[in-house]
């Protein structure tokens, strides 16, 4: 059996406990998250509803005019299935107002802007509702850097950041995410017809097997070759992990004092909680 197999009921228990404990202990009761219509945010929505009660979870769907209309349909489906509060806040006016000044902006800039626009809406609702923002990036995306820094990567708590996409699929069966959401092709939905796997150039199943061996099991290049991974694929993925590492860290602080934040000033985030 692949090491990617998870005991889904056990993971469900740990993750719902995580959401409940980490939210209640900071004095909050509620969570807010962006619901894209995809599987990652769907699973987080279901876990949060179970952990906090659906009345304490606020899901916001934030489509852009080029988003696939099916995404909003799926987001609504997830909100209905999990029973959470649901709002749609289109981001087209804000994003278009900005790019009127930069009409030549490419897809990457536009995609990043949309992701960050959504982030500002979620954190505004965090203040409005007294709710913590839940992250929905999985371990595959986080390791590959396939996300927007300070955009979709921004959150207070992320229940699925230690699960590969393949494991998210397994867990989604356990928590009964609606079928169409499980079965559709993963997409960042930044522009029409985009799919993750096409953009990345490999499938999640392929890359998850490699990442699991490389990261979790610290397999050597020789071992990976023995597993049948092409060396070009291994180098490409190793490069992606390395080059995106800045996205997984706080901004670098130039050290001048004897006690610098995060270097020799070290406290857990749950300090006093």
């Amino acid at each position, binding site marked *: 059996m692949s090491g990617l197999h998870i*005991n889904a009921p056990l*993971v469900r228990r*740990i993750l719902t*406990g995580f959401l409940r*404990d*980490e939210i209640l202990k900071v004095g909050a009761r509620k969570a807010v998250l962006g619901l894209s219509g995809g599987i990652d945010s769907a699973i987080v929505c279901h876990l949060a509803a179970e952990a906090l009660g659906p009345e304490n979870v606020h899901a916001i769907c934030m489509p852009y005019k080029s988003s696939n209309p099916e995404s909003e349909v799926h987001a609504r489906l997830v909100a209905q299935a999990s029973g959470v509060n649901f709002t749609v806040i289109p981001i087209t006016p804000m994003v278009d107002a900005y790019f009127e000044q930069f009409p030549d902006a490419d897809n990457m800039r536009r995609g990043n802007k949309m992701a960050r626009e959504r982030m500002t809406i979620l954190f505004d609702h965090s203040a409005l509702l007294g709710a913590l923002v839940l992250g929905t990036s999985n371990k595959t995306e986080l390791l590959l850097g396939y996300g927007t820094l300070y955009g979709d990567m921004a959150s207070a708590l992320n229940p699925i950041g230690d699960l590969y996409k393949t494991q998210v699929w397994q867990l989604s069966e356990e928590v009964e995410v609606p079928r169409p959401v499980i079965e559709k092709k993963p997409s960042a939905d930044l522009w029409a017809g985009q799919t993750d796997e096409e953009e990345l150039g490999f499938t999640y199943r392929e890359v998850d097997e490699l990442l699991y061996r490389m990261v979790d099991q610290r397999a050597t290049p020789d071992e990976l070759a023995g597993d049948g991974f092409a060396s070009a694929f291994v180098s490409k993925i190793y490069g992606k992990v390395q080059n995106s590492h800045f996205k997984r860290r706080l901004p670098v602080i130039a050290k001048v004092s004897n006690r610098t934040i995060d270097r020799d000033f070290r406290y857990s985030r*749950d300090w006093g909680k």
Partner: protein
Amino acid sequence: MSDFIAVMAQIKPKLGCVSDNLSLIEQSIRQAVADKADLVIFPELALTGYFLKDLVPEAALSLDSPVMTTLKKLSLEIAVVVGFVEVTPDYQFYNSAAWFEDGQLKHLHRKVYLPTYGLFDEQRYLGRGDRFRAFDTKFGRVGLLICEDMWHLSAPYLLAMDGAVTLVCLSSSPGRGVEGEGLGSAVAWRNLTTAAARFLTCRVLYVNRVGYEDGVAFWGGSHAVDPSGTIVAEAPEFEESLTLVQLRDAGLRRERISSPLLRDESLCVTLRELSRIDRERSC
């Protein structure tokens, strides 16, 4: 020696909040007294929480601190074992466990094996203990271990050779490994405690905490193992609980008669071989 009732107090400490944790501990002690228990055992770093990092000096307690005095007084009613950060008069900091009985500090154990790998970083912040000593209590001779101590075969071995019949292990074990039937760390710990009990024909009382710190889930699952290696009482995983276990001398006697492993254990052979190994390894 006699029969006794122990309570495994599987609590959820708040990180760095000694007075809140003391209240939690006092509450559990009161409950254990009401349940007519003789001994109540709290997890590793129960007074402080686990991932303290730079909070170690702030959360540390000296043996003559008011918190220790409070626990001493409470031990007039029931024996109490608790984990905390100890600060010595010369400002050394240890991950320690104290056994209070009849209003006295009966024994202090400083964790010897400080895990500093993977998600652990104890040696950066804490000093290392330098001994394993069994000691006499109202409930027979006991050996105290703190979490990682138990992963070093020599530690429970030394305590058993020093006459301990009950090994008490305080733990803050993070849950990880979700690929199998059970949680990876829980499976590993149960193997460890049951094997130690069986090898050494000792009871093992394993007390773990629950709650989350920075996304790390402490899995609970505190349990008592009889000297045949059978788990005889078990707390739930991930939930706070006070789990009572009745420990009978008859069980220990029976096991020591049927499996006289300790009688036959040759301290002389062990010592001679260890001395030889030490000689050969030393430069």
